[in-house]
């Protein structure tokens, strides 16, 4: 070590005691950093489950919201979230994969507009979600599209929110397909689209599917933009595409805001449902990855 005088060479393979202590302390600090997140995660899950379990009954799934905590349920909110999920998936996947294909397979990276497009997508991924809510308020609920505060408005905005994440993961999946596959297809006379449609896309689908599910999970947990799109509302019916709507995270927020402790319990129960839904999505993504992903 540097502290040892030059005339007395330090024995090779052994470090000074103080260096060993320092190394050990550093390792402990690092492990502490890793542990903090998991401790909080565990604490959070235990809290939510303990508070929510007494309220996790069939009423939660069958009833609409009510000022009486014994009869309050989250059926419209749960259905709203499921419908949003399906709509976001239907809109975001084709557009997201299309964008990823354009950027990976067609775009000439030396062109300034393609680079601008890339930076733009990276920036969109980090725009605060509430700003998307304002975009929806100005142009989708009112303004150009003028759809009003309906389910479709929420779905469009969540789609825009999910897109940057979906594009990034789809690009990675497409980039992972080795060039030799493309070259082989070209050599046999395939056109560019034939190469993409019959070779690249099938090979990239596991990665794209995994990324799509994870992007969807992100979008489903979003609350702030939906608040601005009129989702904080009493919905006594099953939502439709052009009806007023609410969603699970918004319902959770509404219950948290109420003073009675029963509603806190209901909020916790709804959180359990939401986390369960996200768990299913994530498990699906992991299963897909393990089952179908190939390494070249």
């Amino acid at each position: 070590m540097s502290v040892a005088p030059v005339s007395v060479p330090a024995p090779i393979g052994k470090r000074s005691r103080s260096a060993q202590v320092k190394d050990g302390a550093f390792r402990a600090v690092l492990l502490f950093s890793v542990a903090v997140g998991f401790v909080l995660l565990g604490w959070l899950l235990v809290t939510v489950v303990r508070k929510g379990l007494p309220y996790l009954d069939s009423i939660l799934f069958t009833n609409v919201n009510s000022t009486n905590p014994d009869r309050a349920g989250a059926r419209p909110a749960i259905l709203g979230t499921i419908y949003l999920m399906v709509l976001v998936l239907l809109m975001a996947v084709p557009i997201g994969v299309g964008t990823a294909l354009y950027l990976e397979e067609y775009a000439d990276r030396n062109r300034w507009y393609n680079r601008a497009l890339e930076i733009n997508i990276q920036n969109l991924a980090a725009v605060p979600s509430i700003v998307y809510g304002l975009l929806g308020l100005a142009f989708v609920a009112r303004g150009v599209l003028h759809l009003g505060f309906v389910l479709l408005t929420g779905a469009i905005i969540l789609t825009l929110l999910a897109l940057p994440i979906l594009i990034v993961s789809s690009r990675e999946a497409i980039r992972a397909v080795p060039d030799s596959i493309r070259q082989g297809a070209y050599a046999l006379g395939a056109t560019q689209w034939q190469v993409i449609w019959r070779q690249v896309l099938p090979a990239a689908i596991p990665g794209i599917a995994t990324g799509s599910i994870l992007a969807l999970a992100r979008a489903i947990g979003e609350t702030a933009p939906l608040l601005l799109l009129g989702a904080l509302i009493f919905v006594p019916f099953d939502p439709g595409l052009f009806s007023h709507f609410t969603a699970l995270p918004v319902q959770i927020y509404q219950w948290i805001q109420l003073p009675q402790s029963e509603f806190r319990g209901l909020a916790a129960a709804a959180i359990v449902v939401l986390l369960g839904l996200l768990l299913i999505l994530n498990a699906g993504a992991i299963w897909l990855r393990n089952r179908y992903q190939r390494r070249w």
Partner: protein
Amino acid sequence: MATRTADLTQPIRLQADRRRWGEDVVKGVLALCAVLSLATTVGIVVALVLPSIEFFRDVSPAKFYGGTEWSPLFLDKHFGVLPLVSATLVVTAIACLVCMPLGLGVAIYLSEYARPRVRATLKPALEVLAGIPTVVYGFFALITLTPFLKTLGVNVGIFNMLAAGLVIGVLLIPTVASISEDAMAAVPQDLRDGAYGLGSSRLQVSTRIVVPAAISGIVASYVLAISRAIGETMVVVIVAGGVANLTADPREGALTMTGFIAQTGIGDVPTGSIEYKTIFAVALTLFAMTFVMNLIAIRLVRKYREIYE
């Protein structure tokens, strides 16, 4: 091969016989998809700027950005945004105190200490932290963390910026860790081997070789974390409180920029009203702050990629 007789005196044409219009159509459709993301950005800017221009016709920018009193919804209206900005910065600062050291620690552990199998399980597990909806973190901060801080002897109010900042800090750990770790993974192994060859310990290699070499990526992750913390909404809406309050004391509650937007935007705000315009002026300020930071982060990430890859 030889069995087929071909007229080899003529050159073989390799071009397609006819132009395939379908190819162009497909390319056009895909480019259209890509343009949608550009339209989103333009839409955001236009949506924010137009009402803000109207707002600044009624309220001078000097009063908005220099004023210390915020009461746009009262009869006696004041439009000084500084209390909102200060609350946002206090929450962000606390979050940074949590996520920056811890996120860096996690990144160093994953990159320099963890065995491959440990890393393979830890990384996705950490992502779970980032995948939990922020409304859930808000619930946790209100129901559990704030009472816990009280039992620790910290004199916090029911609504306080401290719990909000702490929770946001934890949920940003994966953001900092994953970008920093990417940058550390891009540091060439030769640099490490050289240092180990000279007798360095793992601590020395981590802190004197890997961290300096990956610094642009680490800074990028920090900048991005600041941007995320500024834009985080649900946690502050639930626990940071709903009253504008110019204070640096994190134990007090205060309304942040995102908190104001969410709180005021929940009702069906009539287009063109002063409340409506105020929301957009605050949002434009928020967007500008995060936009600058996102661009810095994107540029820094590109930098380390250019150096090592």
